[in-house]
């Protein structure tokens, strides 16, 4: 019997989006994704300019801050990742200069890349570096989201860092393992997406010895994300750069619509790095809520570094909460699961596998958190698009648009609805993972109960925190 996500959609259901007219043609053109990247470059130029001239002026009236931390971040969480996997990576302008430097051109295809082309060390080919990079970035959230110059410094550092590191390390190692703070998030949460890139007919690939997608040819580059397009197990490290669509001589790559969260059931390359990413994302949703949407003035003073001791206390608590407390509590429930289920399963394997149930939970927690920003504060966007640099412009006539919260009465219901849906999805995935991990079904049922209890407790806690 085929498994069904939420009891509705078969896990192996796919609809090939690239079978629609014109879609494949557009994907195979070298102008794709070049043109969206160029468009994005223009927007980022405005963002960088606004960040630079903005200095320490009010963040809510700054194009840089509004477009990065409100528009982009909300779109990323609520639309781009759940619907389109790592589509942001497809159009991200930050590594564009580094990549054009490697290729010594914009459009041309050469199979030797400029630079030292060093390989990234195998022991670091995981999310650990970006986990700590992301955590480190969140220490500065008090400044990053309120002082325009901080956003400028962050983005500029990533751009310059990428140019330097892409001349040292080959291809997209920078994006995968080194310098993108949201790389871990995008990698792990893309597993939830209803879109994927996969080979259409595996048999064609089996019979095709000279793997153009991996090596490259005159039509396109070797996969810059250094995965095997003919055997993509999970969305995690596919940056949707579309090179494999161009190189494949059999036109055998496809973009598919699929049920949500299917990659979470793929038992390939699961690891503690990804488990910790899940803990960190969940923990940060909670901690950020407390700071930004909570009513405790002292926490805000800490994050705003009113005093050095306060700031260091915040950094310490934030780190302990995310790196130790949440994993620690989860560990207790996993231990209970093993006790109830079967002691024959290694604890580490159970812990790792079940941590993937926190992926739907974490994403949904962030979406619920984002509603708390969207409804009250998105109206500032209208001001900044008319006067991006605070120079007194009024490009679209909306410069004087006042702060206008909307639908704040319904907002809690959006949050609760989303969290409850997240619980249902996490429980569904959780039981499926339980069956995968335990040998017998009755073990899987018993072992599932503590995990289900953990997920339910987290959901109730979040409902209380956000709306109670």
């Amino acid at each position, binding site marked *: 019997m085929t498994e069904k996500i939420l009891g509705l959609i078969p896990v192996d259901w796919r609809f090939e989006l690239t079978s629609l007219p014109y879609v494949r043609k557009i994907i195979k053109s070298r102008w794709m994704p070049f043109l969206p990247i160029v468009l994005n470059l223009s927007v980022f130029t405005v963002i960088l300019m606004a960040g630079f001239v903005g200095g320490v002026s*009010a963040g809510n009236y700054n194009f840089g801050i509004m477009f990065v931390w409100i528009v982009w971040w909300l779109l990323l969480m609520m639309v781009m990742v759940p619907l389109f996997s790592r589509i942001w990576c497809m159009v991200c302008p930050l590594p564009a200069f580094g990549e054009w430097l490697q290729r010594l051109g914009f459009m041309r295809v050469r199979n030797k890349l400029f630079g030292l082309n060093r390989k990234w060390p195998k022991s670091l080919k995981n999310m650990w570096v970006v986990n700590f990079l992301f955590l480190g970035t969140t220490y500065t959230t008090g400044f990053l989201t309120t002082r325009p110059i901080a956003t400028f410094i962050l983005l500029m550092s990533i751009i310059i860092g990428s140019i330097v590191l892409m001349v040292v390390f080959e291809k997209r190692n920078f994006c995968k393992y080194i310098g993108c703070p949201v790389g871990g998030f995008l990698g792990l949460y893309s597993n939830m997406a209803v879109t994927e890139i996969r080979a259409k007919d595996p048999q064609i690939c089996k019979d095709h010895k000279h793997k153009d997608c991996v090596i490259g040819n005159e039509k396109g580059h070797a996969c810059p994300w250094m995965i095997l397009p003919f055997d993509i197990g999970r969305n995690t490290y596919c940056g949707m750069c579309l090179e494999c669509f161009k190189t494949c001589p059999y036109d055998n790559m496809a973009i598919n619509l699929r049920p949500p969260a299917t990659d979470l059931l793929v038992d390939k390359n699961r690891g503690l790095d990804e488990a910790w990413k899940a803990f960190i994302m969940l923990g940060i949703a909670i901690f950020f809520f407390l700071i930004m949407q909570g009513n405790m*003035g002292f926490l805000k003073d800490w994050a705003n570094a009113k005093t050095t001791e306060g700031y260091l206390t915040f950094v310490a608590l934030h780190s302990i909460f995310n790196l130790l407390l949440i994993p620690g509590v989860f560990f207790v429930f996993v231990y209970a699961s093993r006790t109830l289920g079967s002691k024959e399963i290694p604890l580490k394997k159970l812990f790792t596998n079940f941590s993937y149930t926190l992926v739907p939970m974490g994403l949904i927690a962030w979406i619920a958190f984002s509603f708390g920003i969207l409804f009250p504060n998105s109206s500032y966007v209208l001001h900044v698009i008319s006067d991006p640099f605070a120079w007194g412009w009024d490009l679209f006539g909306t410069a004087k648009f006042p702060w206008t919260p909307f639908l*704040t009465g319904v907002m809690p219901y959006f949050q609760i609805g989303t*969290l409850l849906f997240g619980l249902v999805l996490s429980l569904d995935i959780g039981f499926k993972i339980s069956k995968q991990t335990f040998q017998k079904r009755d073990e899987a049922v018993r072992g599932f109960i503590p995990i289900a209890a953990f997920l339910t407790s987290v959901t109730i806690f979040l409902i209380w925190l956000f709306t109670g």
Partner: protein
Amino acid sequence: MKMDKLIIGIIVLALLVGLPLILAQPEEPTEKTIIINAQQFSYTPGTIEVNKGDRITIRLISTDVHHGLYIDGYEVSTDARPGQDGSLTFVANETGKFVMRCSVTCGPFHPYMIGYLKVKPDYRLFGSIWLALGIFIGSILLVSRRQKP
């Protein structure tokens, strides 16, 4: 069977948790005057708790710069400068937690300047917790009842 006993135990527990809701008698509405101090970047008190139907008058006092107070859901607001208090009167007909936000840009952390208005009883909170527990119990029942194909 052990499993059934476990499930019965869970159901009983859930009922006990739901008891407060059943027992929650809304209090008689009264008139309340509450003083809220606004300073960069929080309100004191940080939470106000009132009962459904209360007629609330809030006096907003600012101690440093121009601050505002806007209440989610009710969509009413006032503002205050040092020496110039603000005032707001409304009837708390809707229950639940409502975020109070600063409506006048007052410094770098202005968007994070928040207080809470809680109008009891919080039916929405009880209801959602019930739903979450129901989903939990339902999922356990579902996976333990299914026959193998």
